[in-house]
């Protein structure tokens, strides 16, 4: 996690998300998804700038179908913010940094 982004898997999902002191934004993505690649740099910036306030994590849906299924992910990129281990907000589709920060305002204020 050199870039400050946590990589989740089916096996580590619950433990990582539940044990976090900060809200965790999970980016459900895949290699073949163009829009997912576009938002990756935006998420990396947010991970750096808001370190300590929000944890940015990513989960590859190809390799980890269980977590994607459990949270009814049917379109990627889907971003789900977990607070105290429970989904608190869900964002579907690529957006710019400004719009994303607005959507995340309640978690990073």
């Amino acid at each position, binding site marked *: 996690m050199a870039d400050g982004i946590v990589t989740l898997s089916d096996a580590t999902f619950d433990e990582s998300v539940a044990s976090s002191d900060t809200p965790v934004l999970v980016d459900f993505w*895949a290699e*073949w*998804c*163009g*829009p*997912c*690649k*576009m*938002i990756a*740099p*935006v998420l990396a910036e947010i991970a750096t700038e808001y370190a300590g306030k929000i944890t940015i994590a990513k989960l590859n*849906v*190809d390799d980890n179908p269980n977590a*994607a299924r459990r949270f*009814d*992910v*049917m*379109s*990627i990129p*889907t971003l789900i913010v977990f607070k105290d281990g429970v989904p608190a907000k869900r964002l*579907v*589709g*690529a*957006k*710019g*940094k*400004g*719009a994303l920060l607005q959507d995340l305002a309640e978690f990073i204020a």
Partner: protein
Amino acid sequence: MSDVRDVIIIGSGPAGLTAAIYAARANLAPLMIEGVTWGGQLQLTTEVENFPGFVDGIMGPELMQTLRDQAARFGTEFVTDNVDRVDFSARPFRVWVGDREFRSHSVIISTGATAKMLDLPSEQRLLGHGVSTCATCDGFFFRGQEIAVVGGGDSAVEEANFLTRFASTVHLIHRRDSLRASKIMADRAAANPKITFHWNTVVDEVLGDGRVEGLALTDTTTGVSSTLPVGALFVAIGHDPNSSLFTGQLALDENGYLLTSGGSTSTSIEGVFGSGDVVDHVYRQAITAAGSGCQAAIDCERWLESQHAGAH
């Protein structure tokens, strides 16, 4: 506030990036405002088989990355965000990205087009929960299920063919009695045993609470309504030009396409040029967009030269 640029290019599909390559090689140091979802519609496709120069085809996103790298190599500067507002009423022209203002002597518009929706409340509600406009993004989630595609053009048929990799059956729903798609695509769909055609049929409603569970359909020849149980609906009924930024400033046609004049890329304001799908409702191919991006850059370069000559 920044210095006045020679040219700002808005939009980064094949048209915009080709304009950038040409403008950069002409030493115009273009600023490209590429948008958040840069790369245009090809970012949402898989294999591109008809772009000249790629014998075995190329993946859409890979082609766009290559074009972007090529534009960067010659000095194009990129802003990866969306334009919020423009002012072409005074010179230099002004373009705003959030609260950042950019000024330029000329502008090339290549903002492309966006997938049309059916405009049903149920479709909006279930977007991302089984309703999708991107087969390559979302097809994966419907492995082994019956799903539907609505539309009859090339993009609908391409999506239907692609989705048979995942789905058990793809229902292709079209309001006419034959496809508008090119023959090679239509033949491929007709020969695909996993595609079922529903001719003369319209989607009245997308059914389901938290996720798509089916469609309410009407056969327009008989008037008979029916329900089709499917897990997803992929909407591919055409595109609208992305021209709302320019309403009231540039001449648009009745469908919102940017008007250009005299076989050139000149718009209704001198120094503003248009290229790609925001102008073209006829051909709409990656290669025609790229070609018109090249034309726009050349028109722009010549116009800037003429202004410069006039100033001395």
